[in-house]
């Protein structure tokens, strides 16, 4: 089938910052994103798990954003401004998409 090159950006970020991140993505011209729940994780700031929480303070979420390659830089600038002072991970992968007119 006909596919098109695109970039898949996955941002793991604290739940409290999620709406700020998606606002920044929209400002950076992103047309869509998908949010996955995160059960737990570990990093420089220690280990956490959803079971160990009474508050939203420690939860994380993963925001996935498929975009055309030429828009990657704008997206990363926008995302970085939000993520900068916060914990979290940003990865970019090459991918092919169906229905490229959507992105």
């Amino acid at each position: 089938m006909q596919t098109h090159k695109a970039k898949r950006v996955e941002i793991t970020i604290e739940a409290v910052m999620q709406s700020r991140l998606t606002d920044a993505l929209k400002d950076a011209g992103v047309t869509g994103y998908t949010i996955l729940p995160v059960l737990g994780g570990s990093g420089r700031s220690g280990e956490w798990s959803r079971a160990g929480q009474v508050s939203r303070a420690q939860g994380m979420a993963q925001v996935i954003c498929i975009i055309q390659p030429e828009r990657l830089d704008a997206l990363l600038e926008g995302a970085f401004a939000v993520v900068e002072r916060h914990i979290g991970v940003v990865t970019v992968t090459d991918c092919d998409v169906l229905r490229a007119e959507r992105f």
Partner: protein
Amino acid sequence: MDQILSLAATNLLSPIILSFVLGVIAALARSDLSIPEAVAKGMSIYLLFAIGFKGGVSVASHGVDLTLALSLIAGMALSALLPLIAFSLLQIMTGLSRLDAAAVAAHYGSISIVTFVAATSVLQSSGIASEGYMVAVAAAMEAPAILSALWLISRGGSDARRMDGELMREIMLNGSIVLLVGAFFIGGITGADGLAKIESFIVSPFQGVLCLFLLDMGLVAGRGLRGGGQVMKPGVIAFGILMPLIGSVAGLGVGLLLGLSTGGVALFMVLSASASYIAVPAAMRVALPEANPSIYLTLSLGVTFPFNLTLGIPLYVAVASALTGG
């Protein structure tokens, strides 16, 4: 003294406290016992709704008076001022950075609603009445402490803008406050008639739900202690026990000045002594992301919460009883 001890003993051997202890033990023993996040959140919604509603009904039947307004203002003032004391104390007693100290201080100005709920249930089983609007005071005390802490940091000058309109809205309209205040108004509007309709939902099973909720709190506190142990220096732990005592004295003074009932004074002490672990941590992650969450979460949930739950509440109730002649 005898009364304190007997109250403490009754309290320590209640199903509520023992459930909390069970949770702590299970977590420390690394059992996989856990309460699903959704269920814990469901129980906390239930508790907030029930406690708010009952407070509103009680105000509806006793009427609104000037003391209510004064209590709200006094609560907000306490919430704003306690972080300043906490901050100074932390700089004296611990080696925490300014940022960490401010973040911790915010927690101690704000309040823990579960500690409040546990205290009302101790009062109730001791047959001590209290003002229904104390639940509104609890809501009013949630946020001011956060502003104080951010002011402490901005005064330090490092970088200014920590607070924006969005964060302000998030703090003022956070789910717990809205639910507590909303249920308070619903209870106030529908009064005793409304309570009669939903009594067998919000009154009868209340203590039992509180047991399971405290089981979960125990699990979380125990896990926190296991994981956050390394950051818990002796000075920090000492602060976690000293600060609630200082807070309770402040609450005592305010309660006596306002001329509240025995129960009202005790609850003012409890609110001032308790430390937030829901609203404030979330706000700190947004505004002070560089502050270390293990410190404030472990201190608030792993040290101060258990202290208040087991020893603090009976102590505050006994002191309030003695001083109000209740």
